């Protein structure tokens, strides 16, 4: 049973393009939740401790810090506009009282530090209490400034800028388990960076053919293994996943494992290749499995079995008959992401009409929920939704034709420990949690 907890963002019907959320990510403890939007902003929410007089509610997430991570830019050499849209946010494991995250747009990755300050110095020699500069000739004695407590201030400061390493658009960043390197992937290449070195990165995968006309596939996502520092995977637009071992060679052009499910010849169609393109790949927390999302399904793969996934979940199979119109309105190219719950026992991914789907891996039960303003009363239980799949539409069911394809849930995140989820629906961020009785 999931219930509504909070909704963030404006209620207005006209949505400003810049306000559309483009990524959602919990940090390692789940205490902070970051979102990035098309306007290049990053908003961080902090979990407030639950209050004693309202024990039925887990604490809420409130805005902790907001900052402009990326600005629109123009590449004069290539005459290209570089959007400020935040493509991905990745938190770094916490290393001291401050928090760090990587944010990226199409070209540039930035390392941000988010820190608190609760003291300030008073009694400067060269300026007054109100900040005016004192006349140096009037200063007759030196005093040592003192530190005074002040209201808590949260500051976000850019610490490193990793630029000029990607010719194509960055689609993924992923921090390595050695905590000193991370990888960044664009359409054709994957680079490995050291978190402290900004002027150099190593190219570890390059699938660019000598002749661009021979290009048949692109990299769609990449991720480092959560525990094994030498392993990473990347998925392609052909629906395949390659697992590479960085121990074997400095260049990982040759993969160690190749995950691919043979295509079913009976369902072959013009759209087969498009819908098999993988839009997201995520390792389970245990590191044993990985999950891939293609247009119509989510697949869970055992890293030890390359020829087929161990589990396949249909997300919205009813759209198979609609592919032609989805192709015409470009929806077929939407990149849905997917995520695991903290114990790897359930997975979540988005769909259209502000629906999102959850699959319980043990019971094989699935559920469709909707992120909408209508059910946004505190502690309101979310009602399961059903889409009629042909034949007669039953009561409570929604027909496929009445789905709103402009309302799509591409980005979701699951708290690493608790049953708290964050769902980005256009410009709104919904937070749901399981019901505590």
């Amino acid at each position, binding site marked *: 049973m999931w219930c509504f907890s909070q909704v963030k963002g404006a209620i207005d019907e006209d949505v400003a393009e810049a306000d559309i959320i483009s990524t959602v990510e919990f940090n390692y403890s789940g205490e902070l939740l970051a979102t990035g939007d098309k306007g290049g902003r990053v908003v961080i929410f902090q979990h407030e401790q639950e209050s004693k007089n309202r024990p039925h509610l887990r604490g809420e997430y409130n805005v902790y810090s907001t900052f402009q991570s990326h600005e629109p830019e123009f590449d004069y050499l290539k005459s290209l506009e570089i959007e400020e849209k935040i493509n991905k946010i990745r938190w770094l494991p916490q290393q001291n009282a401050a928090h760090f995250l990587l944010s990226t747009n199409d070209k540039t990755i930035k390392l941000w530090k988010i820190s608190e300050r609760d003291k300030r110095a008073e009694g400067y020699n060269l300026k007054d209490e109100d900040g005016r500069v004192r006349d140096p000739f009037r200063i007759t004695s030196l005093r040592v400034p003192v530190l005074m407590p002040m209201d808590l201030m949260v500051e976000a400061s850019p610490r490193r800028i990793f630029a000029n390493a990607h010719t194509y658009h960055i689609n993924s960043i992923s921090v390595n388990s050695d905590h000193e390197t991370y990888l960044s992937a664009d359409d054709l290449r994957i680079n490995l960076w050291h978190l*402290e070195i900004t002027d150099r990165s190593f190219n570890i995968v390059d699938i660019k053919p000598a002749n661009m006309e021979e290009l048949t596939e692109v990299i769609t996502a990449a991720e480092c293994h959560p525990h094994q*520092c030498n392993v990473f995977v990347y998925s392609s637009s052909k629906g395949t996943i390659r697992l590479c071992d960085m*121990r*074997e060679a*400095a260049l990982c052009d040759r993969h160690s494992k190749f995950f691919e499910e043979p295509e079913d010849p009976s369902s072959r169609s013009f759209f087969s290749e498009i819908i098999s393109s993988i839009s997201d790949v995520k390792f389970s927390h245990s590191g044993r499995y990985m999950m891939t999302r293609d247009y119509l399904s989510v697949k869970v793969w055992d890293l030890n079995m390359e020829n087929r996934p161990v589990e396949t979940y249909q997300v919205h199979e009813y759209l198979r008959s609609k592919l032609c119109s989805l192709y015409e309105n470009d929806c077929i190219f939407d990149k849905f992401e997917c995520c695991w719950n903290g114990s790897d026992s359930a997975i979540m991914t988005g769909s259209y009409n502000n629906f999102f789907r959850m699959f319980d891996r043990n019971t094989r039960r699935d559920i469709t929920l909707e992120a909408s303003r209508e059910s946004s009363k505190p502690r309101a239980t979310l009602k399961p939704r059903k889409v009629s799949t042909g034949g007669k539409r039953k009561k409570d069911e929604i027909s496929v034709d009445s789905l709103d394809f402009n309302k799509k849930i591409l980005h979701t995140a699951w708290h690493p420990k608790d049953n708290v989820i964050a769902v980005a629906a256009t410009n709104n961020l919904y937070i749901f949690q399981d019901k505590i009785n």
Partner: protein
Amino acid sequence: SSQQHQEAVHHCASSRCGEDSHGKLYKNDTETQLYSLKMYSIIHIFYNTIYDEDEVLLALAEQLGNFTMLVGGPEYVHCLLPPLESLATVEETVVRDKAVESLRKISQEHSPVDLEVHFEPLVKRLASGDWFTSRTSACGLFSVCYPRVSSTVKAEIRQHFRTLCSDDTPMVRRAAASKLGEFAKVLEPEYVKSDIISLFTALASDEQDSVRLLAVEACVSIATLLPQEDLETLVMPTLRQAAEDKSWRVRYMVADKFSELQKAVGSEITKNDLVPAFQNLLKDCEAEVRAAAANKVKEFCENLPEDNREQIIMTHILPCVKELVSDTNQHVKSALASVIMGLSTILGKDNTIEHLLPLFLAQLKDECPEVRLNIISNLDCVNEVIGIRQLSQSLLPAIVELAEDAKWRVRLAIIEYMPLLAGQLGVEFFDEKLNTLCMAWLIDHVYAIREAATCNLMKLVEKFGAEWAQNTIVPKVLGMANDPNYLHRMTTLFCINALSEACGQEITTKQMLPVVLKMSNDQVANVRFNVAKSLQKIGPVLDSNALQTEVKPVLEKLATDSDMDVKYFAQEAISGMFDFLLSTKLLNFNSLNFIFLLFFLCSFGPSITIPNQRLQRLAWLW
């Protein structure tokens, strides 16, 4: 701004130092304490108000290491510990490292008692800190306090180090692994065996590649600490494992540290273990590893035990080297090319001619220019053993090809080796084959090449002498003064600038000066102002008569040129020359020159303005 803050920190340190050296300002104890307190609060303020400026924190961390005298001397040095402790936990690695460096420094200024009362608790706090940043910093502090504390505290320190070696976070294990060798050095021999070896073995089989590769480094220092008979059982299994590690980065590290390892384990183990290991690294499937190993070929062979060095090289190493010559990776080949010539001194004349020469020749024909360059740059080793003539037939085409390479950086690199080659090949060979190349570079279309070519000429003249220059180079250089391309005419001037000193007064005055002076009428302003610059440059080489009668009128004329830049540089030259006269002639007081100088000065009259300062100096001299 951070710049100001930084200066403030530095200023703080330096000014107080000065005050202290004047006398014992803070003799009285309470005063010292008060002062220390104040100092501490200043530091505290600094730390808290500007904690986001890395450069300031870095400066602060560095300066605090020099603050001992400022806080009242060694007995109060412990009051520097709190700020350094917090600096040792920041996330910025450079700041943390600097703080640790300062802590290490001031640890020496603690008395043994203070060390146990103040310093050691700090190390413990850092070692058991919540954040990895503090624990990594602790790793660097164990070795400085260990030798100076009591045996109970020593036991605690060893325990802390053990704990950090199996820390949850790879960062801390990396820090521990990188300090393992250093810590082992200060430990009593019995603990090296009982403690360090097990830690070393554990770190060397860590799941993180980045930890394992650091253990290789520690291996060097640990091996030097153990008696020969223990090496085989305690260190070698781990080292063998590292040389065959699944991760190329670890094997790379082994290859990179091979010479150190070789020295640390001694000749017996080298013969039995390291030779096959080295062979494997030279044949490694990863090019990075092969390149690192190839780089060590010469050093490894040099350090082999002399009694059967030649045999080992001929039967084990040389076959691998032969394969590397035709490696598929150009970095491997060029790494090899940079050291392979060194083998000739080890193997002697006959072996070099029979076995190495074919390899050199093959590399001289390599498709990659870097490989050829590396061979050419190391010719001196071969020259000593078999003489360069053996190679010259193949050398020449290689040099000519590089000299005309389409990439200007390649051309630049070969120019830089020209003086060396000229020295080895001798003047006749040079005149016959290479001189035309050197002159051709002077009219290269890339400025950097022309510039390097003029510099090259200077070095050649230094090598072959002024007479040679007069016969072979100077006429050609001066001939370019009439070239229709103004860039080439300027090259003449640049060459004259470079050559005048090496050629001496005679050639400069008689042959070069007339050409320069004639060029002052050039129609291109860039040439004219370069004439002014050249005149200033060659002025010191010329005799005073020429300066007075020939240079001065031309400069005066240029100083009234219609072009602003020409005017400017002419005036620069005039005052520069004046300065030169003032410094050399006048200060070595010589009445004749002095009179000449006055004459020189007066004759310029009001056409130049002499800077005020110089006038004052002149007045003083009067």
